């Protein structure tokens, strides 16, 4: 390691670097002592920074919770992490679903299921048809699913009444809340499903309503029904499926999983789509980019408030230490060094405030999440919900970074002022 460094950096350069590092440590040591010596003044500034950082974490953590819930909800209710279909299914599947059938099981499927990060692989068959009870008939979007596997893949789907599908071959369905309301369906009633078959004819079956469900997407619940895979294949008189829905242990694994999987699949003409590229994720992506801009405005406002509330104290700090500044310069410190000293004090203040503010923010976030934030149903979604606040390490890092930059910024003018003092005038203030 050292010999490597020696070859990389010539000795005299290394000595310079070491000296620079030594000076930087010296700066920070002096700065922290000065900052923490002025207890009362420092605590006034610290409180402003801590409040700002905590507020920022709560605001961005609230949005993060919403993004996360929305994303995980969509992934676990319908999208999955990776969807594997025949090429062209995404575009042409709705008009002519039966053209894009693929095998229910194959070598490739076994290969995917062998990945350690794969939680489950759920086969799905998508189709449209008509549903009738008594005199009422309406269209539906149906999904043939394997109930056993869907327990994981549809974790974010809530059964409002009745129960979930009981087996892959059961003669029953679950119905989305909007669709059920539309037909005034009750659990236990028998309905008729009508659909085009693979051979071009029309087929109908009678099934029982086992339960009524809701997802976080109201538009989906208004038309959706779910049916055991074998039952749907019987209705359509086909054997294949449309989609292998792959659910991973964690959403963060998606890209690395894709990279590993792509070269391994043997079946030609497969399309492998990560969750964020699906049409269903579009709404999520747009929402995130919209709200991220709004959160950015909030962050800037908070940064601005921090600057306003601490720059005054930082000016006082410089003004009260004119004598010390004069002494520093008389002893041979350059203007640049004096500037650096005071900027370092801002950085130390910002860092301390950022760390304490993060602790306060995370604590407050935990508490608020524990109490819960009651929320009305968002547009396009079915039900009201209780929100929480999710503070990720990334947000904490960002908050500390912001508080350090903000404090340095607030100290910029006072530090510059300090570095430009006339030495003799400054010394006259010494006491």
């Amino acid at each position, binding site marked *: 390691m050292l010999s490597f460094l020696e070859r990389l950096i010539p000795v005299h350069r290394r000595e310079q670097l070491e000296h620079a590092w030594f000076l930087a440590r010296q700066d920070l040591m002096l700065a922290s002592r000065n900052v923490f010596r002025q207890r009362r003044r420092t605590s006034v500034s610290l409180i402003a920074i801590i409040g700002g950082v905590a507020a920022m974490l709560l605001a961005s953590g609230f949005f993060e919770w919403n993004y996360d819930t929305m994303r995980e909800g969509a992934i676990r209710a319908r999208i999955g992490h990776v969807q594997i279909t025949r090429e062209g299914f995404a575009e042409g599947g709705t008009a002519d679903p039966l053209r894009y059938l693929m095998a229910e099981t194959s070598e490739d499927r076994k290969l995917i299921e062998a990945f350690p990060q794969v939680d489950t692989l759920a086969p799905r068959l998508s189709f449209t048809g008509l549903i009738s009870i008594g005199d009422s008939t309406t269209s539906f979007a149906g999904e043939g699913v394997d109930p056993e596997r869907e327990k994981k893949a549809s974790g974010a789907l809530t059964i409002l009444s009745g129960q979930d599908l009981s087996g892959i071959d059961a003669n029953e369905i679950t119905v989305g809340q909007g669709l059920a309301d539309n037909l005034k369906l009750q659990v236990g009633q028998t309905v008729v499903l009508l659909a085009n078959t693979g051979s071009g004819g029309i087929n109908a079956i009678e099934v029982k309503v086992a339960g009524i469900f809701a997802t976080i997407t109201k538009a989906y619940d208004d038309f959706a029904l779910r049916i055991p895979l074998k039952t749907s294949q019987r209705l359509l008189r086909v054997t294949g499926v449309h989609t292998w829905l792959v659910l991973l242990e964690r959403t963060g694994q998606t890209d690395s999983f894709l990279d590993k999987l792509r070269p391994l699949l043997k079946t030609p003409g497969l399309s492998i789509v990560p969750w964020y590229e699906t049409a269903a994720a579009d709404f999520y992506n747009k929402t995130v980019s919209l709200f991220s801009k709004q959160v950015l405005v909030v962050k800037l406002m908070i940064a601005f408030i921090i600057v306003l509330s601490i720059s005054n104290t930082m000016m006082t700090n410089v003004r009260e230490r004119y004598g*010390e500044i004069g*002494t520093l310069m008389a002893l*041979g410190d350059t203007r640049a060094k004096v500037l650096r000293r005071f900027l370092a004090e801002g950085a130390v203040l910002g860092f301390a405030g950022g760390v304490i503010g993060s602790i306060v923010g995370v604590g407050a976030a935990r508490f608020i999440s524990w109490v819960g934030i009651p929320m009305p149903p968002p547009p396009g979604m079915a039900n009201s919900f209780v929100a929480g606040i999710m503070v990720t390490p990334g947000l904490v890092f960002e908050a500390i970074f912001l508080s350090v930059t903000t404090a340095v910024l607030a100290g910029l003018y006072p530090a510059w002022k300090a570095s430009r003092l006339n030495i003799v005038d400054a010394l006259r203030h010494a006491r």
Partner: protein
Amino acid sequence: MSIVVLEHVSKEYRLGDHMVRALDDVTLSFESGVFLAIAGPSGSGKSTLLNVIGCIDMPSSGRVVIAGHDISGQTPDQLASLRARTIGFVFQTFNLFPVLTAEENVEYPLLQMEELDKVDRRERVKEMLELVQLGKFAKHRPSQLSGGQRQRVAIARALVTRPELVLADEPTANLDHKTGEGILALMRDINRRYKTTFIFSTHDKKVIDAADRLVGIEDGTVRILGVRKEGQWAITNVARRAAATTDTEAAAPKR
């Protein structure tokens, strides 16, 4: 060689709409190794003179050469470096850094000297604290030291870079008589042992008597030059203009 050379140095301040002449055509030179007192009534220009010699103030006109460096036309950074290496300061109000311990205060001027490593610095600091008899107080903060002790730390800090010149503006004015005498004796001792040049201002007769050279100023002009030989002052009164080419040594008539 003269360590300080001033030629026709004037310093003017604007006060409202009239000018104050703090220094009026001062010409002086001091050799290395002197223990020199600048005396004069309040407002006579003692501090201004010391500030110009210390390169923390620029004259309005005239030439200033300190340890061979002509300071006119030098940038603030060049002057800072000159101060860091050749001049030590002792202040009336001690001016220690309150957040640093005695030894850290003494070490401070050494930090920017790249040629010294940690061991060198520690050695020098220890040596200096011993010299001012404060070895036991190395870890004390200024607030835990008496006035006399603080001024000793300040002297150690001024000397640690081994400067050629130490400037002290009324170093004993904030100390009681006995402590002040101790400080003077210490500076005198260092001056003898290391041949470090000391220039200090005062209006205290007792302090003047500790010096071996004297510059008396009044209204910004040099009025008296004195040399002490075998305990006796040889005083020259300087006519207003005649001071122009005077050296303290040359000006003093041998008795």
